[in-house]
């Protein structure tokens, strides 16, 4: 997957776990929590969906990498680069 495809995969996960949010104006450089109502259970949903959909494992010590879209994509490129889009 390309970084753009990884971003789209994250958007699709966010659309599922935060269905009341409008993601069209998401600022990739700003943390998710500053722009959306996301709590720790929601972040666990992101981790779970990455595991279910792409078999990507995010260990607990790496959760901080999922703060914003930019940091998430950067973190996932080495893990998902080989995943077919």
């Amino acid at each position, binding site marked *: 997957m390309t970084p753009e495809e990884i971003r789209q995969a994250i958007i699709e996960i966010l659309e599922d*776990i935060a*269905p*009341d949010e409008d993601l069209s104006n998401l600022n990739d450089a700003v943390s998710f929590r500053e722009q959306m109502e996301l709590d720790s259970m929601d972040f*666990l*949903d992101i981790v779970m969906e990455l*595991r*279910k959909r792409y078999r990507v494992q995010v260990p607990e010590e790496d959760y901080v990498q999922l703060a914003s879209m930019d940091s998430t994509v950067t973190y996932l490129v080495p893990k998902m680069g080989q995943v077919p889009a």
Partner: protein
Amino acid sequence: MISRLNQQELPDELRVVITGIGMTAPNGNSLAEVREGLLNGRSGVRPYEIRYFGKTLAGVCEFEVNRHQSKKDARRGTRAGSIGIYCANEAILDSGIDFANFDKSTVGVYVGVTEHGNVETENEVYQIKGYDYDTSFWSHHHNPRTVANNPAGEVALNLGITGPHYTIGAACAAGNAGMIQGLQMLRLGECDLAIAGGVSESIHTFGIFAGFASQGALASHTDPTKASRPFDKARNGIVVAEGGCLYILERLSDAKRRQAKVYGEIVGYAINTDATDFVLPNAERQAQCMQLALKRAGLVAEQIDIVSTHATGTTNGDSLECDAVRRVFGQSEKTFINNAKSFIGHSMGAAGAIELAGNLPAFSDRVVHATINVDDLDPECDIPGLVRNQPREINRVDYILNNSFGMLGINSALIVKRF
């Protein structure tokens, strides 16, 4: 003990009245819709399919989930929680109470459930099957969804209620049991407003269908609307339904102070136990339960105008309940008998609460809704006053007795008086 006093001589501070109703049933999403369905013979039973079990019938609700709940909370929570949230919000609106300015620490939430957690557990097991039973795919939402207080807790979370909340597990007597709990807590001063009744998400667990089928107690019929047929010779079991009904209960003194609309006053109740079998009911004990409710209300059988029977549509269950009703009301010429499961199926933990609500409008319109689908009355169920297939207008309705019974021999009876 207050419950042993003549409840009609209590001061207003200990009298408990119904001031709001919110409900969803397979034939309507408000009391007005459900009542119209009960008077016009409208069923809510339809073809239904669920994983593993396959094609069957069920009573399905179509309320607007997101009217009072965000999409995110609906996804996070349970179907029982969503039903509870819809019913609680509708009940509050119906009560006309200024809830925004009400002290939320004085509100109690008491929700009856037949079972809880089966739906979510089945879903998770099904999910991890797709991952070779690797439990790292088991949802972190599983525990908050399956704790037994979940349906009541979701109501409290949604409405910002900081008073007590819990569920009352009472099999299919749970709707009555939830209301009784609310009444007791109001009398004890544990809350000033009780949101009480019952909910059921049971159609979303294959286990309940499979369990009833294995027991030989799951209804089938070529016409889904004819499948739930209590008291008919050809009855062959239960139609499982979902639904909910939550009441706003208040002390009469508070209701008077805010000039609330009052649907009726709970003047008697009883819960007892067969202690004879896991499944098979006990007519003697059911009769004792009704008698105890009458005694506590200071009433005799002849004063009850409507008995809403539990009437699940099983061969034994209906015969035994009719035996019990005959023992108590067999000599009463002014008591009429009906039930709502013939229309909507068995909404489990919600049943008692829904069925009582469906009868409350009779206080003003004096019409006893029928039990439908009685094409060939079983002689064992031929009880005096049975209102068959067509509603019946009577002169006056002052008291309604609502029966709800459940597995493990739990019996409940609730008596509501016209206000």
